[in-house]
């Protein structure tokens, strides 16, 4: 008998659903073994049919999201938080920094793209006060972060859940798949903003660019740093950062960067704090991050610190 898979799409961008389609021929291999009974982007199934594996994309942002995830939990045997939004809140998790009234005020009351300044409150599900990952609402059995997770890891996770076979899911960071070498370059200056690095073989940190590869779990095979673009941590924190309450992006990046370049740890930390919405963009609504005693996100980037 084929295993039934049901999927649901909450506050996310649908990119994770597209990533499932991205499995290409692997999808065909799977077709002998699985049957999709509910997929919002492909099928018109309004109910929640029973399934063996439930895949949920997106965070809990509205009352609809909360109800939908509860229906998913009730109808499937194994529930997978699929993608960084479901696991950590993802980019919409930035709403965790503000109450829903100030989010509305920012977007609708003065927003340049909303000339009538009307709030869409009729017929739209009510926003909740904050944003939370799905495991804050229901029990989750498997976590597959990634924005979106690379097809390789999706296939590996499905294999694991179907029959426990297949390759192991990596415990390493994004650096592990990066071909650049970390070498000491004392005297290098800190380079802020979206800059690229001149040397193609040298680690971005060694070139003064704050790359988040070393603090990010590998679920992507490091495409960004290999193209010279700093990793923004879209797969969410590394296992070390999740495990150790006192270890945080800011401290690890400052320590490593200062070792490689001589840039003072304080300068790196100040930069990360000033740009907290960038460096914590994907994971700040997760208690695994905001509960850390060294993380003061609301102080760095909360309502008192809006740059508008």
């Amino acid at each position, binding site marked *: 008998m084929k295993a039934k898979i049901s999927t649901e799409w909450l506050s996310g961008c649908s990119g994770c659903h597209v990533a499932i389609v991205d499995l290409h021929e692997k999808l065909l291999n799977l077709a002998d073994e699985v049957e999709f009974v509910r997929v919002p982007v492909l099928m018109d199934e309004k109910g929640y049919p029973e399934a063996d594996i439930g895949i949920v994309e997106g965070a809990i942002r509205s009352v609809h999201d909360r109800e939908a995830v509860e229906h998913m939990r009730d109808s499937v045997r194994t529930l997978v938080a699929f993608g960084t939004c479901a696991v950590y809140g993802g980019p919409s998790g930035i709403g965790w920094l503000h109450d829903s009234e100030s989010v509305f005020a920012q977007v609708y009351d003065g927003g340049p793209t909303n000339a009538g300044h009307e709030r869409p409150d009729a017929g739209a599900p009510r926003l909740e006060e904050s944003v939370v990952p799905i495991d804050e609402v229901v029990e989750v059995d498997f976590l597959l972060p990634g924005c979106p997770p690379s097809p390789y890891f999706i296939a590996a996770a499905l294999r694991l859940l179907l029959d426990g076979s297949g390759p192991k899911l990596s415990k390493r960071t994004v650096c*592990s798949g990066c071909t650049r070498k970390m070498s000491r370059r004392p005297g290098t200056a800190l380079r802020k903003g979206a800059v690229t690095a001149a040397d193609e073989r040298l680690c971005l940190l060694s070139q003064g660019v704050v790359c988040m590869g070393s603090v990010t779990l590998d679920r992507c095979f490091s495409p960004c740093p290999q193209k010279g673009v700093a990793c923004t941590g879209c797969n969410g924190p590394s296992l070390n950062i999740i495990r*150790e*309450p006192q270890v945080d992006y800011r401290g690890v990046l400052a320590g490593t960067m200062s070792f490689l370049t001589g840039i003072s740890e304080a300068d790196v930390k100040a930069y990360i704090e000033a740009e907290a919405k960038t460096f914590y963009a994907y994971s700040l609504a997760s208690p695994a991050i905001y509960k850390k005693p060294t993380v003061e996100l609301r102080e760095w980037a909360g309502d008192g610190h809006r740059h508008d």
Partner: protein
Amino acid sequence: MITIQVDEKACVSCTLCVDACETRVFAFNDATGLPEVVNAKECFGCLACSAACPANAIDHTGVPHSMNFYYDLHSLDMLSKMTGDAADAVPAIASADVKRGLDDLGARLLSLGAVLSATLRSGLPAVGTFAGRTLANQLPRYRVPKNFEEALALAIEEFAPAWQLEPKVSGDTLTITVKDCFLRRLAQKHNSETGGDLCTLFYHYLAGYLSRMGKVRLRHTATERGCDACTYTAQIHPS
């Protein structure tokens, strides 16, 4: 026995593991750009190399897990759900562990009681000094300073996450300027005044620690308190 395995494909040649290991388990091979495990039997499982490794490329086996009292259980629970590996799940706290924890807590309370009863009559400075000496006694011994200067440098480094201390030794007078102070920041955050009991405790704690580590006697002569920096002055005597 502890075994150490470096995932060579994952390694980015940063050399951080070589630096992080206090017992010099690794040596860096410049020709291959990889660290080599040259002293495996010296590994005592602190996992400092693993924590420093940007690629998380160093795996150990046979390291006893520390008690999970200080971990966040929700975060721990995420690990095995993310890797599908049961080995990543840290076992729930068993009742035997709770008993050990309580024994440990009991021992701490007893020693706190000892500190208090040994010092209470002589007031806060003595409590601070005693606690500082206790800290020095309890630290691991792999970095024993050779002399007072080394002890001072080490203390500055160790207190650095919370206190920025600038020491000056002239003749037998030690002056420490406290620039950035965790206590001062704390007091400012809560709108309370600095310079109270906490500061007294801290100065004597620092002095107690320094004197034990540097094998000298420090006689406190003055503390001056300011808004941006405080100074602590003491006479150094051989112990």
